[in-house]
């Protein structure tokens, strides 16, 4: 199979962003009619490479050859001209325009400046037939389901006569049935000779569909797998760079007193369900569930960001009222939010200013003046303790890499000496080294008697790190699993609402 015509050849590609090298001398080959999957952890550089191929961004170094011709991909138009189409993870249809108008957006056939609606409609119908979408082309794109919008995107790609179709996580928001439908369309496209680059986190799909798999790790090329080599374990090993068993090293600690007790809590987002659970000192509790299961909303309620409607929260056996984050902080809670850049950090400020933001008040002189000496001591301590890689304490946080930014957020909360740490997706979008350091830190904190409650979408992380896992589905707790019962199957069964 690999002896077929090479139609896309990427060599030595490098792309830098402030503070991080997104792609470091990577390569990628695609043959005619091939189904190539590109996998890697978050932040491995997959999306950046795809954006470069589609002309959205320009590389710093390296060459892109399409059909044997070196191309300078300086715009989306250039990419389209060479037959490359990218379907973004977030779909880009204009919801107020019809399907037909969306397909021809920017390339409308026109007579004397007036849009030729009839031609557009007929042409659009032809492409919709190709993707087997039986909906009139006049329908507004906003009225379609996500799966149907996906098919419209493919029709749009076909309309520019794409020979290389790049799909970034197309199934991430599709139901099983819609995914099946998509796969059928993809199979048809391959018969037409369209080559496909498929990016996905769902290794099951990847194994089923791919001719070949290219793996990226930390912005570098980490290897290729062909045919029989494509197994779940092999892919994970390449992505992670080591066996998973060595990756998580959690030893349960002796469990202390109950530190947090929640009973009959109703959050603002899901007021129809009552939530009850307990967390003990020295315990690491995971919260698992699918996107939209209400996990973040639960943490927000606990931290007073979106106060609960009813129910009781007790901390160390005392019932408390949590109406704003400062209440929660005074009670020894700390929240590392999911959206690090939007909610966790002030990107324009320095490492020092961010680290001391939550503890500034505690150490203020006369309650007003900031304590410069104490600030410096605290910041230096946190940089050393968390091994944050920063030139100095005055560095602007926005210029640090994701992992180091997350360490600054953690440092901010550790400086308040909390007794219960709430983590929302603590390792999202950070590199593997930093991930492992965060796991170690969780471990260390728990052994010192701190309770850790963490939300994660990565099942491996939940299984690897938690003493106990609370699984949520559509706003309610569908079950609690002790460490010995944690398997991907048992979690997924509860997370999808099964019993």
């Amino acid at each position, binding site marked *: 199979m690999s002896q077929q015509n090479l139609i896309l050849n990427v060599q030595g590609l490098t792309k830098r962003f402030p*503070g991080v*090298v997104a792609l470091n001398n990577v390569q990628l080959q695609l043959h005619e009619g091939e189904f190539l999957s590109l996998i890697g952890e978050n932040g491995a550089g997959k999306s950046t490479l795809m954006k470069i191929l589609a002309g959205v961004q320009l590389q710093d170094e390296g060459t892109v050859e399409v059909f044997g011709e070196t191309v300078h991909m300086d715009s989306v138009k250039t990419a389209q001209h060479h037959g490359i189409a990218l379907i973004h993870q977030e779909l880009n249809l204009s919801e107020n325009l019809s399907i037909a108008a969306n397909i021809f957006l920017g390339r409308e056939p026109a007579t004397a400046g007036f849009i030729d609606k009839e031609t557009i409609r007929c042409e659009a119908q032809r492409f919709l037939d190709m993707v087997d979408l039986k909906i009139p082309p006049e329908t507004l794109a906003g009225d379609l389901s996500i799966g149907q919008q996906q098919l419209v995107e493919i029709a749009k790609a076909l309309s520019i006569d794409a020979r290389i179709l790049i799909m970034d996580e197309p199934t991430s928001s599709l139901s099983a049935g819609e995914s099946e439908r998509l796969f059928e369309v993809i199979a048809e496209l391959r018969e037409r000779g369209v080559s496909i680059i498929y990016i996905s986190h769902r290794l099951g799909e990847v194994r089923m569909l791919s001719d070949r798999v290219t793996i990226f790790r930390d912005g570098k090329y980490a290897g290729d797998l062909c045919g029989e080599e494509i197994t779940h374990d092999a892919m994970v090993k390449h992505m992670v760079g080591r066996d998973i068993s060595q990756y998580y090293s959690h030893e349960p600690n002796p469990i202390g007193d109950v530190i947090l007790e929640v009973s009959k809590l109703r959050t603002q987002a899901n007021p129809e369900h009552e939530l009850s659970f307990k967390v003990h000192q020295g315990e690491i509790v995971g919260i698992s569930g699918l996107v939209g299961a209400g996990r973040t909303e639960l943490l927000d309620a606990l931290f007073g960001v979106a106060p609960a409607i009813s129910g009781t929260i007790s901390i160390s056996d005392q019932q408390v009222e949590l109406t704003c984050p400062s209440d929660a902080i005074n009670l020894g809670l700390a929240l590392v939010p999911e959206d690090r850049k*939007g909610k966790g950090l002030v*990107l*324009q400020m320095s490492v020092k200013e961010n680290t001391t933001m*939550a503890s*500034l008040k505690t150490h203020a002189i006369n309650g007003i003046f*900031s304590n410069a000496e104490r600030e410096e001591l605290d910041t230096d301590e946190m940089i050393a303790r968390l091994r944050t890689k920063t030139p100095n304490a005055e560095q602007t946080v926005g210029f640090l890499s994701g992992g180091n930014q997350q360490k600054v957020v953690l440092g901010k909360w550790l400086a308040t000496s909390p007794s219960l740490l709430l983590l929302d997706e603590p390792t999202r979008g950070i590199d593997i080294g930093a991930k492992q350091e965060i796991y170690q830190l969780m471990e260390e904190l728990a052994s010192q008697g701190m309770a850790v409650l963490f939300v994660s979408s990565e099942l491996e992380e939940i299984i690897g790190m938690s003493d106990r896992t609370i699984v949520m589905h559509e706003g309610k707790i569908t079950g609690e699993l002790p460490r010995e019962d944690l398997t991907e199957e048992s979690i997924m069964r509860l997370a999808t609402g099964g019993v």
Partner: protein
Amino acid sequence: MNKIMGILMLLVFACIATNILSGGSFVIPFNLQNLMVRTSLFGIIGIGVAFVIITGGIDLSIGSMIGLIGCLMTITLIDKEWGIMATLLIVLGVSLLLGFVHGLLITKAHLQPFVVTLCGLLIYRGAARWITGDSTGGFGKDYNDSLRLLATGKPFSTATVLIVLGITVTLFCMYKIIRNNQQKQGKPLNWVIGGVISICVAISGASRFSNISADQVIQLSTATTVNIMSKRDTAKLDITKMDEENPGKRPSQFMPEILLNYVGYLAIPFAVSLAFVFLKRDTHAALISIVLLISGAALTLWASSYVSTLFGEKKDIGFLAITEVIVTLGIFIAGVDRFLKGVYRSLPEYRGLLSITCTLSVCWLVSQTPICRTLIPTPMVFLAAISTAAAIFLNKTIYGRYLLALGNNESAARLSGINTDRMIILAYVICAFCTAVGGILFALDGNSIQPAGHGNFYELYAIAAAVLGGCSLRGGEGSIAGVVIGAAVMRVLYNSITLLKIPTSLEFAIIGVVIMIGVLADEFVKKLNNTKRQQAEAERVNLVDQ
């Protein structure tokens, strides 16, 4: 810091250029005193709006509020005769309340700051016109020697200020040197240099006192420090007359002029030797700075026929000369800047000596001009007090940090336990307080309050000063020193329009263009710095990889 240096440079440039082009009219005491009053007034309201801008908001109601304050004052003071104390309390109370309401509407009712304060702009103007029946008011002559002195008084001479400032800073430097010695850390050199400079400033200030008799000094201070709260009439010394009596009088022998001259001459060989040292380290930069310095000096010589205007000598200047002077000054300042930057980085000892030389030269130069006969007006004292307090609040207290943090990222600040709503309300209250102080002074200064026009557009001047001083309308960025200098730049420009007899119809256009250029230059420098940083980062990463 760079930003402040840049705008300071612009201020110096504007002052020197205006002075030369106006044939020395700029430095006469009358003009400088007026300029200081206006700068102080706009600086005070600029500081207020800077706090709001730092939170990412805006206050458009300042001008109308100043109008309302003026009208309220004429009513309570003249019509109702409630007395000075009551008037000031009422005005402050009303302003703080309005600021508090702005804050509440923005945080609790979730209205946009633009909309809330735009409504304020309309409402307060209407209220001002209604309560006064749209008739122009004033304070008459009764308060000329009491309350109005808040705006028109001139309590200190430049000499006093220089002496007090010099001695205070000297003492501070000595304290720092002793502390450094005890702790055996820090950089004592910087403090030694600072001490030497401030001693020079104090001496040059003291030397001016010998220009007038001790008798006159006492008279001067009694005339200007009357009890502001009473209407007592005091014998006054006619300042203008004193100016006429001592036209362009040189400083006394108390401060050996020869020494200053000598140091001034020393500066030239010193600068040349420095250039050679520098040449060894960074040839490219040294060459650029030397070329710029030489060409600047040459052009200065060429334009030297106008230099005598620096000393207050009047001269008519044509259009060609105007271009000449501006180009010369520009090149010279750029050369000095380039030179200083290079030295600043690599040679700390030379930097110290250079700054001592420069200060001495400037002291000498100033003592030759009428600047030293200028008196400091009272609003300047208000500005000094408010800006110091504001700077300490913004940079040294936790609440200042909170304001900057929430201006940059409100949700991150809230999640860090900061009560963001309370901080935003505080910012609007601070703004209202500054507006009240500014409004009182504006009313007293003008003594004629037209309900429909008093304070019109002042909010825009305040916002412009803040933006020129480095505040970002996106929030989270800004410095008090920058705002004050920004206000000064605006007033100097305005002043130059009058002095250079440029048609006043062009006033807004010129100020607009200058602000635009200032902000563009700032963006440009920011972008340049970012690119540099990225390159450095890339190199660092490459090194690590290899």
